């Protein structure tokens, strides 16, 4: 086992090789995504695909792990920061950053073993999940919100694992068609964001990813959903979604994978898009 990973040998005798062979894409490398990428680098994931079209701004500096004042001055690409952070931890990690919207690099994204979604729109997360389902890629979704209720604020969030063949974000009630519809008509604008819930949720997501690829303890079923209460400072598993009694997904047909026939045919003509 690599010297740098000796302290995590409890993950299994081949865990370092398993993690080194893994390709994880983090879509959205802002608040939560920057934490995820940092931790994936620490834990030894060998191939990272950070995807984000944005550049660092001053208003990101309250939460963007690894971003500096100088990055904001320069308008540095967020994915450049991702690569810098990852390689400063582990020079051997193979980071292929893409400073583009994820739908412009779908050919790359199809090769991911796991996708971690750190987007800030319901629509984006819903479409990314549908993409992951179609190409049999486990999808970890991180969501966090700050709402005003009366005269105070409520911080909440969750980490959800959308597994092919299992319940989806809609089944879990995390993203509904109403959410997407309201968002389509809603006002654009910055949403409140702070660093510590991002870190907590990102850590939970990385833990769930590790459980998926190096099952270091026996559990009756894969944990799919953890809910965060930022006011009580708790992160709790959803008892129903994490049990063997959960329902089958009503939204994704298990056999509906890969490209529908016409898209396979047209992709040959376009080569890889």
């Amino acid at each position, binding site marked *: 086992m690599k010297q740098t990973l000796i302290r995590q040998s409890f993950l299994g005798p081949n865990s370092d090789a398993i993690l080194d062979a893994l390709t994880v894409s983090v879509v959205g490398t802002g608040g939560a995504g920057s934490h995820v990428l940092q931790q994936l680098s620490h834990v030894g994931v060998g191939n990272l695909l950070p995807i984000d079209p944005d550049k660092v701004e001053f208003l990101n500096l309250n939460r963007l792990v690894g971003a500096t004042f100088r990055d904001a001055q320069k308008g540095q690409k967020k994915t450049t920061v991702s690569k810098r952070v990852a390689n400063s931890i582990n020079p051997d990690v193979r980071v292929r950053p893409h400073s583009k919207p994820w739908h412009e690099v779908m050919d790359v994204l199809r090769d991911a073993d*796991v996708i971690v979604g750190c987007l800030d729109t319901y629509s984006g997360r819903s479409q990314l999940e549908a993409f992951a389902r179609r190409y049999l890629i486990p999808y970890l979704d991180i969501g966090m919100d700050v709402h005003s209720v009366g005269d105070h604020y409520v911080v909440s969030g969750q980490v959800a694992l959308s597994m092919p063949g299992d319940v989806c974000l809609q089944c879990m009630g995390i993203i509904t068609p109403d959410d997407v519809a309201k968002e389509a008509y809603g006002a654009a604008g910055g949403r409140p964001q702070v660093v510590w819930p991002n870190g907590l949720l990102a850590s939970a997501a990385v833990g769930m990813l590790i459980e998926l690829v190096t099952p270091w303890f026996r559990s009756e079923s894969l944990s799919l959903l953890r809910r965060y209460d930022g006011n009580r400072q708790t992160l709790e598993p959803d008892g129903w979604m994490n049990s063997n009694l959960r329902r089958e997904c009503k939204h994704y047909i298990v056999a509906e994978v890969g490209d529908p026939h016409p898209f396979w045919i047209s992709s040959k003509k376009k080569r890889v898009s």
Partner: protein
Amino acid sequence: MKLTLKITEALIREVRKDLDRAHPYAAERVGFLIGRCTRSRSGIIIFGSRYESVPDAGYVEDHSVGAMMNQRTITAAMQIAYSEKVPIFHVHTHFGKDKPKFSGIDLRENAKFVRAFINVCPEYPHGALVLSDTDMSGLCWLPGSSKPRRIDQFTVVGSCLRKTL
């Protein structure tokens, strides 16, 4: 260009369960994995979509081999490829542990019936898989190619994500 096959844990479990059943006269069972595909930056990914079991009557009684499909079985598989426009992979198992290998008879017979699938559905890859209890190997005829290629990677997606080469 890399060839990958991805399948859910539930589907491969269904395949193994079917292939594990005893047959009245064939020494082993076979079936068909119906797939879908996509192109990625690294190459082609084939996805297991569903499994078609071969009924008991679908075998020739031939004790010189483990299992021999009759013409009706092959025609039924060809019909699926033709009407649904999908990749088809013949599947059987050698049981045991470790990475399985195709036998000489497997290789000879694979080439014959895969050719039939290609004839009715040339736009897609077709091929054959052989399983062990813990792993799998595969050969794939890509569109336009007369010789098979080894499937480079298998990924099983389920309670544990497993990749094997």
